[in-house]
């Protein structure tokens, strides 16, 4: 059972950074960190699929006790081949849900997204790469699902307000 009454997203991010994992925060947490008033229950990250990083990520996920939440009773763990794929690994960690994504939108991977990120300081010794609002919007437009389209107005208005400042 994931821990409550603690900073779950921060705890996951700290663990990933502690293991020197290369990743980019995307999704709802990225939108919120970029200033959009959104709510989300899971942390989404796109990871580098370089072999060394996959090894570091596997170690971090082991530390996070990450298992597939698509198979809740079976405690199935991701392996290197899963993380090397462009697909989405929907995991549950001891701190809560974590989605580890090989690609997002139109097959945008870590390398393609890196130039569209900002580095944000979230705490002492915790700086993370976050996908910028412009690209979050572009990805949502590419995906085009109902859930993504529903979020577009608030993301677009947030971008407008940011640009006015």
């Amino acid at each position: 059972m994931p821990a409550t009454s603690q900073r779950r997203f921060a705890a996951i991010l700290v663990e990933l950074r502690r293991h020197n994992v290369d990743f980019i925060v995307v999704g709802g947490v990225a939108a919120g960190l970029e200033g959009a008033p959104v709510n989300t229950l899971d942390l989404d990250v796109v990871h580098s699929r370089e072999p060394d990083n996959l090894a570091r990520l596997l170690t971090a996920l082991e530390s996070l006790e990450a298992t597939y939440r698509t198979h809740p009773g079976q405690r199935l763990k991701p392996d290197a081949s899963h993380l090397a794929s462009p697909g989405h690994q929907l995991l549950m960690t001891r701190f809560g849900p974590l989605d580890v994504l090989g690609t997002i939108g139109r097959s945008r991977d870590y390398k393609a997204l890196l130039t569209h990120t900002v580095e944000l300081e979230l705490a002492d010794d915790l700086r993370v790469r976050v996908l910028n609002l412009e690209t979050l919007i572009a990805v949502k437009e590419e995906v085009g699902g109902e859930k993504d389209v529903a979020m577009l107005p608030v993301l677009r208005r947030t971008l407008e307000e940011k640009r006015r400042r």
Partner: protein
Amino acid sequence: MVVTATRKEADLDDDDQLRCAEPVYSEDGVDLTLIRWMLSLTPAERLDVLEGFAESMAEIRARNVTA
């Protein structure tokens, strides 16, 4: 004697202040005041807001788990 209730000049100023110079909602219904509030926070403070929601939802769900 007819007493006409008039608003004091100070009240009119208060009412005028309540009317925002900037729009409150966008044309597509987005609450712009929430955006401005989030943008006034540091990234660390924004993470606290997100964490607070997630934590609250987790606690409420845990309280309402049915056997």
